[in-house]
């Protein structure tokens, strides 16, 4: 009761902040479109896709962008925590009896809604250029993307709270960014790599989302990739949220 009320309050607070930040809105909406605009022509030249039209390229590539968006949306709330530590907002909230889980969940849910809006824009633009969207598949993908996003956001927020400063926080996030993206095979298919890279990819949560997203986008609902993604992301997301809440509970500056 208290928890849901607090989550609601902090969710709206974050959502309003996002809406009142036009630069962020613009960048958030245009970055995935930019990826699409720049990569689609490149990928069209790949041997398997050559000559099959933009629609086929988008079918292959757009699910990966959605996964990428899920991952990168998670970093935002962490950066915001760093800013709010400095401006005293976090301390102000911590002195109130606000539920600690709500302090975490409010901003995560707000960013998640924003992500879904950007996803929708991306898919709509994709459809206009020939992307074949399977509604049921997209819905399941949205759930998976939400899980991954929540996990990354909880991780980034807790990391921000522990590192306290932008330098330390950025080092952790940037340090993880490249290996996570590369291993997941978002931009380059992981199948091109040597076997040890393919093995290593299995420790990357984003990898499971990317693999599942490809089959889901084409309508393959009950594929093993989907089950695997759920099997990995549900417990991981739960664990990360539990850890992050603990970090929030413990007194930290």
């Amino acid at each position: 009761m208290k928890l849901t009320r607090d989550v609601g309050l902090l969710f709206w607070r974050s959502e309003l902040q996002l809406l009142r930040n036009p630069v962020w809105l613009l960048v958030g909406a245009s970055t995935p479109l930019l990826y699409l605009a720049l990569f689609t022509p490149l990928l069209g030249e790949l041997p398997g896709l050559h000559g099959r039209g933009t629609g086929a390229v988008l079918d292959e590539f757009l699910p990966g962008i959605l996964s990428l968006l899920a991952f990168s949306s998670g970093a935002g709330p962490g950066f915001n925590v760093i800013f709010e530590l400095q401006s005293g907002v976090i301390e102000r909230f911590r002195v109130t009896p606000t539920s600690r889980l709500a302090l975490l969940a409010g901003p995560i849910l707000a960013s998640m809604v924003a992500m879904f809006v950007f996803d929708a824009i991306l898919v709509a633009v994709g459809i206009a250029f020939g992307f074949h969207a399977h509604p049921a598949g997209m819905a399941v993908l949205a759930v998976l993307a939400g899980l991954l996003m929540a996990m990354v956001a909880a991780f980034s927020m807790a990391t921000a709270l522990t590192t306290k400063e932008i330098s330390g926080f950025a080092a952790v996030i940037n340090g993880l960014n490249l290996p996570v993206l590369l291993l997941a095979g978002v931009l380059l298919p992981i199948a091109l790599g040597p076997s040890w890279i393919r093995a290593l990819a299995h420790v990357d949560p984003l990898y499971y989302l990317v693999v599942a997203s490809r089959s889901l986008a084409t309508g393959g609902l009950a594929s093993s990739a989907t089950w695997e993604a759920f099997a990995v992301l549900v417990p991981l997301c739960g664990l990360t949220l539990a850890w992050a809440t603990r970090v929030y509970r413990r007194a930290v500056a």
Partner: protein
Amino acid sequence: MTAAIEVDGLRKSFRSRAVTVEAVRGITFAVPGGTVFGLLGPNGAGKTTTLRMLTTLLPIDGGTATVAGVDVARQPATVRQRIGYVSQAGGADDLATGRENLRLQGALYGAARGQLEGRVAELVERLDLSPFADRRVRTYSGGQRRRLDVALGLVHRPQVLFLDEPTTGLDPQNRAHLWEHVRSLADDGTTVVLTTHYLEEADALCDQVVIVDHGQVVAEGTPEALKREVVGESLSLTVRDPGRLDDALGAVQAVDGVLDGTIDGAEVRLRVGDGSAVLPAVLGMLQARGVDVESVNLARPSLDDVFLARTGRSLRDAGGPRAEVAGE
């Protein structure tokens, strides 16, 4: 009156790599309910650290603290229900309006929707926020922002209110206004703990102060008592006939309440306990001896004199640029 706050042997050190900063080194004090209590000290003295321990924001390393009858270390959640805290940094949302900030704060404390609007309007009124309450905080001046910060700490009518440098950045008029407000809060039974660099603020506003230096209490008491006990007051006088300075000194030293005296150039300088009480007796004695007094100057000691007497340093020097402002 029962103590609203009891602090006993409070300690805190910060460890970062090789260095350990002992920010608070065994602070003890008690604050009676419904009074205004001041923590005074130079930059880095440990004022903020002390407040952050009392407001559940920092784990306590050693000692105990009870706030509003509740042990801070054992029942932080209960303490949070009963206190308000306005940090040095403030912490209002930049992208929201003042009114939106107040509404959210009230809601987080569990205020019912029906009561919230009225409470927000009341605070806007009492802290003079109305000219800018519906603008985004980002556009506020420093003083406007500070007033909103204070209002945020008051939304839920806390029993104990902690204010970390509440008047920094306020112009004299708004400072006086806030003092009045703090005073009326205390009169209504709220216990207020504030930190300040402004000596006159502690002097004018606080029922009791502790002066902190390097994480330790160097003096405590009412501002009046502190100033009297530690240094007394300084009474200097000049006489029409400089040849009679010695006579004058000899005569007034016998007066009750004169602690000691010296001749400083063309002046007799006396240290006295309570100047306003001693002055008539001194003048009477001189008149009886036939010494014509030319001028009298009674300097009330400031809390800076107290700090100087206890630490050998001036609070103004120790306090850096902000404390200099306080000296004006």
